[in-house]
């Protein structure tokens, strides 16, 4: 089971290592982790996507709550949040294939952000599934390089996670 956790933490040096260390130490598998400051400059928000059964998620939430600089932990409910990740893909691109690749990007609503004689770089911001689809579509042309951020996520509707 994959689950997404939003964690509010004090914006101090060393907090991230406390959290990432917790995962490896307790044998929890982590798919992605993204961190950034919130509208309150003293607070950062970490989005964790991880895998495990109910026991693991519950333990993880509890162990995260024990870390002193962790302010709040919330498990986002399936289907009730919006998630995004950003990816930059550098694709091999002979001149003859350029139009095809641009078309693919257009269909997926991705952006071409750089062009060179033998390659193009595509930028895409979507949920993990759509990002993976784009990668599959571009793979046949020859992918030279991929950079992707961790997933960030936010609840749908008016509710807001705050301190």
């Amino acid at each position, binding site marked *: 089971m994959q689950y997404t956790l939003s964690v509010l933490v004090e914006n101090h040096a060393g907090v991230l290592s*406390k959290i990432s260390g917790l995962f490896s130490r307790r044998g929890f598998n982590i798919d992605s982790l993204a961190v950034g400051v919130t509208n309150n400059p003293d607070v950062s928000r970490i989005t964790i996507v991880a895998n495990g059964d109910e026991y693991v998620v519950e333990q993880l939430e*509890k162990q995260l*709550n*024990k870390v*002193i600089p962790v302010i709040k932990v919330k498990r986002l409910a399936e289907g009730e949040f919006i998630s995004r990740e950003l990816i930059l893909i550098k694709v091999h691109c002979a001149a003859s294939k350029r139009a095809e690749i641009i078309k693919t990007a257009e269909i997926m609503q991705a952006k071409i952000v750089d062009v060179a004689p033998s390659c193009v770089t595509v930028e895409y911001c979507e949920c993990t599934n759509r990002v993976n689809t784009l990668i599959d579509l571009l793979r046949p042309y020859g992918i030279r390089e991929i950079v992707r951020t961790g997933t960030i996520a936010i609840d749908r509707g008016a509710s807001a996670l705050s301190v």
Partner: protein
Amino acid sequence: MISGAEIMVKCLEAEGVKVVFGYPGATICPFYDKLYDSDIKHVLVRQEQNAAHAASGYSRCSGLPGVCVATSGPGATNLITGIATAYADSVPMIAITGQVRSDLLGRDVFQEADITGACEPFVKHSYLVGKTEDLPRIFKEAFHIASTGRKGPVLIDIPMDIQQQEIERFEYPDSVNIIGYKPNTRGHAVQVRRAVEAIKKSRRPLIVSGGGVLSSGVKLKFQAFADKTRIPVISTMMGIGVMPSDHEMYLGMLGTHGKPVANRALHDADLVIVCGARLGDRAVAAPDQMSENTTVIHIDIDPAEIGKNVKTEIPIVGDMKNVLNMMIEEIGDYVVPNQWQETVKGWKKSFFRTPPKFDGFVEPRALVARLSSMLRSKAILVADVGQNQIWCANNFMIRDGRFLTTGGMGTMGYSIPASVGVKFARPNRDVVVVCGDGSFQMSMNELATIVGNKLAIKIIIMRNHRLGMVRELQDMHYDKRHSGTILEGDPDFQKLAEAYGIDHAEANSNEEAEEIIKDMVKSDKPFILVCNVYPDTPSI
């Protein structure tokens, strides 16, 4: 103007610290210089790990966080095992380490070690101090964190320049506000009601007392609860001493090295009330130790412990003190079904065994069983780790005193340094150490600390020339191949005691040992009694 070092001392004074255990070095020298002018007593140990164990012993018997101090690099890394021990045993502790100058941090200079990084998995929290101005807030927070919620060690790592820098003034904060740290101590009323209903419905309820009952300081109330309801009680190793050993409804320690009667009760119970225990693998090793249908009520201040090792039907997060008060009120005049009381009492008789004797040796289980009657009722027994720990856990007849050991971490060499802390916390109590010849040699350097501070600690060494517990494992699971478990080259402990100027004796029978102990407890000096034990004496 006031220096960081002076602020550190003032913070400790403001927290009511009377004694610190430590070992100086270059980067902690500014603090030591200011400590010299303070009324706080410094106890110089002989190795840093033992400063942490001493602080642990002090803490467990005084109820205040113990404080240990070391220098940067190797001083700090030597503390680690002691800090990890306190963490596993949930003992409140403040560990203060010197660190290299801030501008040198990260350059791998002489005696530099990333101690906050290294201790990450076994501290409740840690600080690497960046500004002298932050010291009062950090000390205030550290003492608060260490001694509230689930108690544990907090590390404060302080670069030398931060100790030396002078600032305008010192002001100790009255309160703390840590936004992410608000332990829930109250206990949920609805959950308590559910728990009591379940108890009233059950036919064979059982209480498991853990270390949490002791750290919550609610021992007497707990005893009264057990007395009134007649619910049988078993305990984890950390929970030994919650009940007097001879209490009619107390069955002893559970687990792989516990009492068969305690395990039998756990197996047959239809409802188990776990009180402040994590139920590690030594307590509940096999899943079939408890019945599938047993209802588990788990009371703990740490929500992460509930449901971690044992499936729980009714979780109650809160301080034992509060939850117990609520339960007492809710449960009214309830008394356990008579039949269950009688069954348990019957087991207690039928499971009782007198250990066999070997001529020319001391029988350690029988001796430990008699020990309490030769001490004053509030005596504190500190057991080490190994067979000696199990002999003590299962046989020491605790009355109003304490039984201390590291049940969580199981650190060999704990008993002697811990007893140093215990004696500082409780100078008027009988303090007795029971260790093996293996564990004794892990911290016998602290004999100097005992002598230097004139501490009347009585050390009983159960000598079998073996690492008995590992050897027992080898006998059972490794085809009796005694790889690395025979102690060769041991010193003559009598001569060793002589060298330290400690009174000493040796015993080869229980009668002899008891005569010596009777005299030993009368003296106000330390004592070493070596008991020669038959090498193949089993743990249980």
